[in-house]
């Protein structure tokens, strides 16, 4: 149980929130969490269309995509939560969005090359689609998964409110996912090319990074010491 004791320790040491809280910053964090959830599901739905020309649209292709997305998110949650233990602040938070945006670019530029290679190398479209989904989507979706627990950490200012804050965060990000699914499947694919929607997601992620950098500020440097102590225990 070292991780659990550490997290409560770091909460108690850095009892104040890792950013200066104004209603404005809360709103920004909730908005970027919403957009993040929106982009995740938008990219997932487009994923089916990206893979279909090489692996078909059989049920196992969707199986591959959903598996990879769930796996990426689960590890993203884990690592995002761990990262929030060490000196949580707006810079790292904003960097998640920049990193996710950059990691989405191979989906636009390299998908065909990656799939051509895998198509030739792997006969079975089940494993071909699984491998492709892993190569194209694991990293960006993992980073996007890190946003959620980190957002909770930035919003929480006291243990008593942590459940409420987490609930609110899940609410907005999952609502974003619901609307991202709906918007993409009902409208975006009718209006735009797949890559245009992908560029929209990249732009939205970069916008999130800018919004965070412009509105969220670290308060006092005193929380550093506690966070550093926590870090040393957490690292495996």
């Amino acid at each position, binding site marked *: 149980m070292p991780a659990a004791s550490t997290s409560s320790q770091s909460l108690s040491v850095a009892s104040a929130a890792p950013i200066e809280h104004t209603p404005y910053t809360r709103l920004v964090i909730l908005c970027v969490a919403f957009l993040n959830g929106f982009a995740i599901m938008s990219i997932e739905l487009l994923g089916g269309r990206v893979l279909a020309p*090489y692996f078909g649209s*059989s049920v196992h292709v969707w199986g591959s995509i959903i598996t990879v997305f769930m796996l990426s998110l689960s590890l993203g949650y884990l690592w995002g939560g761990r990262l929030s233990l060490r000196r949580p602040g707006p810079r790292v938070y904003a960097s998640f969005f920049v990193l996710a945006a950059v990691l989405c670019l191979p989906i636009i530029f390299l998908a065909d090359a990656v799939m051509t290679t895998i198509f030739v190398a792997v006969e079975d479209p089940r494993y071909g689609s699984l491998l492709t989904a892993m190569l194209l989507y694991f990293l960006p979706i993992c980073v996007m998964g890190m946003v959620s627990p980190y957002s909770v950490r930035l919003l929480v200012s006291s243990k008593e409110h942590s459940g409420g804050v987490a609930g609110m965060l899940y609410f907005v990000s999952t609502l974003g996912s619901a609307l991202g699914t709906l918007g993409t499947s009902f409208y975006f694919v009718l209006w735009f090319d797949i890559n245009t929607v992908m560029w929209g997601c990249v732009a939205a992620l970069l916008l999130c990074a800018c919004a965070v950098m412009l509105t969220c500020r670290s308060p006092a440097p005193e929380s550093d010491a506690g966070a550093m102590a926590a870090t040393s225990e957490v690292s495996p």
Partner: protein
Amino acid sequence: MKKAAMIPGAMAVAVLMFAMTMTPTHAQREIIHEERSQYRDVVVTEFNGQRCMLFNVHRGDMNQTCMDLRDPKRLVFNYTKMSFAGLLLNPEPRRILVAGLGGGTIPMAMRDLFPEATIDVLEVDQAVMNVAEEFFGFREDDAMTAHIVDARVFIKRAGLRGEQYDYIVLDAFSGEYIPEHLLSKEFLEEVRAILTPDGVVVANTFSSSRLYDYESVTYQAVFGEFYNFKLPGSGNRLILATREGLPPPGELRSPARELYDALEPYGVNLLEYPPRLTTRPDWDTSTRILTDQYSPANLLN
């Protein structure tokens, strides 16, 4: 008192249960088999001397394929008969590819007509294959193979291997969900790449929706001018396309005469087909072409 009260209640339940078994669907057609599928369950029904394969019976979907039990050779559906119009452009196919098995009527008829031909049949759903074999008399043989595979995947691989076919039937569109990756320009280019110079593509398409325009311009973009084929009284539209340009309509009459006798037992009147083929566009030519990047077919249907 209590017992007496229960008797009418039990009778009412019995009457109700009896009434439920007599609902119209059961009275009209008898379900003789249900096959569980990864995609949607496949149901076999018999009614009025016809055995049919259906998907999504609960929503009252149309029959996918039917067989006349008194004359199994005779084709039941118009679009199935119409698909043989491709023989007007290539009367002696040697390598045949059929995307979409259904009950196997098209490949079985092709097997009868051209015993020397090699036939590959593509079907994504193993359950459809099982039902076709068990209830519709579909049989593989040395030269006819059914592949459980997505048509796009098979055709892309065939292209990489440099294989070619001289008769390709695209009939993979059935049921509720349209496989959008089988409508795009890129897919049709892959189809064109495995077509021999004298080969023909016969595509069963969507005729009664906005998709008509989209499909037409996409085929036009890949194959150039093609024969548009409709029969009065039938809701279907078939596209006949070739790799190297179309023979003039006048040249279609002699293969029609030559093949008429062979096709008559299938209920195909090939002689009435040539005058129905036209290259005149009756669609909006300014429609956007469907591509892998843009193929919202299910939203356009």
